[in-house]
């Protein structure tokens, strides 16, 4: 079949089974768009800003495990997409971003809408390509999808000059599903000797803890992790990115760890003698001060990316490999009679007893009797009203932490947030991608009046495609997390963290023909949520006017260790 460059792209997306293409047209991609009209299998979703295209593709990818795809034009189209690309890079999300480029003949001449897309995106992609010849186009697309989704996933940018998609130049095309690359061979099988050594250490442990991250979700290892953790009867804590990989309701789950993690999770980290890190990367928000990190522990680290191992924390037993594969090998080894699980030993009993003591602190308690709405209360009610199948996206700030602490995630890929880059404006466009991937499922976006205004224009996209997202806006008229840090560390000088001139969100939602609701009292929260979630086919924007100076607790201040965490002062609990 002879196709033009534009047609090759359309046909390739079809052959690759791409369901949705999130994009925004412009000069350099006109010929691709023209060809897309002829491709009916891949549905194009017209966003209102290119950043939203990448976030929506990202939300689609996180909730399905498939590669998300975006298409933007050259110059400003590409630069707008960069925040979304970097967001996906920091959280290892498989994305392919097709960017238009000026024709090859004028590259480097500062042509209209020209930027060095490969240069700009280089530090925040897994890899990128500039396709200078139509004969390289199909193979480059195959490579892009392969790279994005294999090994440690990540975003791949393919920059396509306009002359490469000239409708008058046609070449033979055949779809190539896979490709060998001599310079790219991700390790998937863990080293058997290392796995055996790790398991022996685990079985001798007196105070073990599993510390699991986004890699468990990305590697589809939740089921195996659950079986292994249950078999061993070890306690388990999760990073922000790993929530849902292990059911929150299980008694072995200690909650999230790190800066706003639970008391029991962080204290267990501090006291553990064998730490089993699985698909987690020892981020500074997790470790606290490195000098105080797990002072008495031997550390086992399972990760598919060798460069994640011993990057910030030196580990004792590294295992490079696919997380599910390694955990499966451990389970198989446990069937041998020499590997006796002694989870009823005195040491393990004492360890669980200690954990129960820490749990008694009830570190997430807060005063529920206030008339003013507590953000924690809204999330608890949201958790009650929605079932385990609901998808929760969030923006970035206090509301994100409250959602992570108070929503009880039971399944992987149901908690969608920007953990690594911390991108405000992520929540709503990500929710669009999630909703499109799961049309019959409940999707809620937990946000604040600061974050939501960073991509508020996407309410129009939601209208166009009838996406019944529920927006939970925790409106405290402050950039809450900034204000909290200013209260704690800058003597209460609230420099520029006050949100002035906030729109009437009810009218704003209505102007996009959505439903808007405003809730101002604790007693109305539950009814409002029930009413909103009963509107199955409507986007509902619920503006919760919440307690202005609520703080996120527990908290480990920057530069402190896990054992130095601060709980909410009693005065706040009255």
């Amino acid at each position, binding site marked *: 079949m002879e196709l033009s460059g534009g047609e090759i792209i359309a046909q390739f997306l079809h052959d690759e089974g791409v369901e949705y293409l999130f994009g925004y047209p412009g000069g350099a991609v006109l010929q691709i768009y023209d060809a897309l009209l002829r491709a009916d299998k891949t549905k194009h979703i017209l966003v209102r800003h290119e950043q939203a295209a990448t976030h929506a593709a990202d939300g689609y990818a996180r909730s399905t495990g498939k590669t998300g795809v975006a298409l933007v034009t050259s110059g400003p189209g590409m630069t707008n997409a960069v925040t979304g690309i970097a967001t996906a890079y920091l959280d290892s999300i498989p994305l392919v971003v097709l960017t238009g480029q000026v024709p090859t003949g004028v590259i480097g001449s500062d042509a209209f809408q020209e930027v060095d897309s490969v240069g700009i995106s*280089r*530090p925040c992609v897994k890899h990128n390509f*500039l396709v200078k010849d139509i004969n390289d186009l199909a193979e480059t697309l195959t490579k892009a999808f392969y790279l994005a989704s294999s090994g440690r996933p990540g975003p791949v940018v393919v920059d396509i000059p306009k002359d490469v998609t000239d409708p008058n130049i046609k070449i033979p095309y055949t779809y190539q599903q896979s490709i060998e*690359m*001599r*310079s790219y061979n991700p390790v998937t099988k863990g080293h058997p000797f290392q796995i055996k050594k790790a398991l022996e250490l685990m079985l001798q442990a007196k105070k073990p803890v599993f510390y699991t991250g986004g890699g468990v979700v990305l590697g589809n290892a939740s089921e195996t992790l659950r079986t292994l953790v249950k078999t061993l009867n070890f306690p388990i804590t999760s990073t922000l990115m790993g929530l849902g990989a292990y059911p929150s309701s299980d008694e072995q789950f200690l909650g999230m760890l790190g800066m706003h993690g639970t008391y029991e999770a962080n204290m267990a980290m501090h006291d553990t003698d064998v730490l089993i890190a699985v698909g987690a990367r020892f981020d500074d928000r997790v470790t606290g001060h490195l000098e105080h990190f797990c002072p008495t522990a031997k550390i086992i680290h399972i990760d598919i990316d*060798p460069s994640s*191992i011993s990057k910030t924390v*030196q580990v004792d037993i590294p295992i490079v490999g696919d997380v599910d594969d390694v955990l499966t090998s451990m389970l198989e080894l446990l069937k041998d009679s020499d590997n006796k699980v002694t989870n009823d030993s005195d040491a393990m009993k004492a360890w669980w007893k200690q954990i129960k003591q820490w749990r008694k602190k009830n570190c997430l308690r807060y005063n529920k009797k206030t008339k003013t709405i507590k953000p924690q209360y809204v999330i608890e009610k949201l958790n009650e009203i929605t079932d385990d199948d609901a998808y929760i996206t969030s923006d970035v700030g206090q509301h994100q932490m409250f959602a992570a602490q108070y929503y009880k995630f039971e399944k992987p890929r149901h908690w969608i947030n920007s953990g690594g880059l911390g991108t405000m404006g992520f929540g709503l466009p990500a929710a669009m991608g999630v909703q499109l991937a799961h049309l019959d499922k409940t999707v809620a976006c937990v946000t604040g009046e600061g974050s939501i205004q960073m991509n508020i224009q996407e309410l129009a996209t939601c209208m166009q495609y009838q996406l019944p997202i529920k927006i939970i806006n925790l409106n405290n008229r402050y950039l809450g997390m900034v204000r909290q840090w200013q209260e704690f560390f800058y003597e209460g000088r609230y420099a520029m963290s006050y949100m002035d001139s906030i729109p009437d969100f009810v009218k704003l939602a209505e102007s996009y023909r959505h439903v808007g609701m405003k809730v101002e009292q604790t007693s109305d929260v539950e009814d409002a949520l029930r009413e909103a979630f009963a509107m199955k086919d409507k986007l509902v924007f619920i503006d919760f006017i919440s307690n202005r100076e609520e703080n996120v607790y527990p908290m480990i201040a920057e530069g402190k260790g896990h054992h130095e965490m601060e709980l909410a002062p009693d005065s706040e609990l009255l």
Partner: protein
Amino acid sequence: MRHIISILLENESGALSRVAGLFSARAYNIESLTVAPTEDPSMSRMTLVTSGSAEIIEQITKQLNKLIDVVKLNDLNVSCVQHIEREMMLIKLKAPASAREEIMRLTDIFRANIIDVNGDTYTVELTGTTEKLNAFINVFDCDSILETVRSGVMGIARGSSSLHV
């Protein structure tokens, strides 16, 4: 500690900037970097000289390996490898009649070659380790050196071990 890292790289446009970008983005040092195509024109061989603690060097090699364009690499400064390193320098010297004899003598001592001559200058070509090149520079006073150009260090393992695909 100083490390010489040999890298086989896909000979693609932008591959060099990926390596250079990695070093600036992660605040690693580059002392020198030299690169040219190999006998297989689809690949380039790069020699990169860097320094850092053992942990930093480990991260550098891991991060380099992670670059899709890096086919293979070898740290020449690990205990199991012995290596040879060479650097080349072209140096242009003021050569008034009174200094010509002395420059030629020094050129002989260092086993260098005079490769260009005119009424006022000599251009000398010299190959060796970084220390040897520095020693040659140090025998002249600053005023008599008009220009130096150095290739950066190239390295190769001793014996039959080789970096190839």
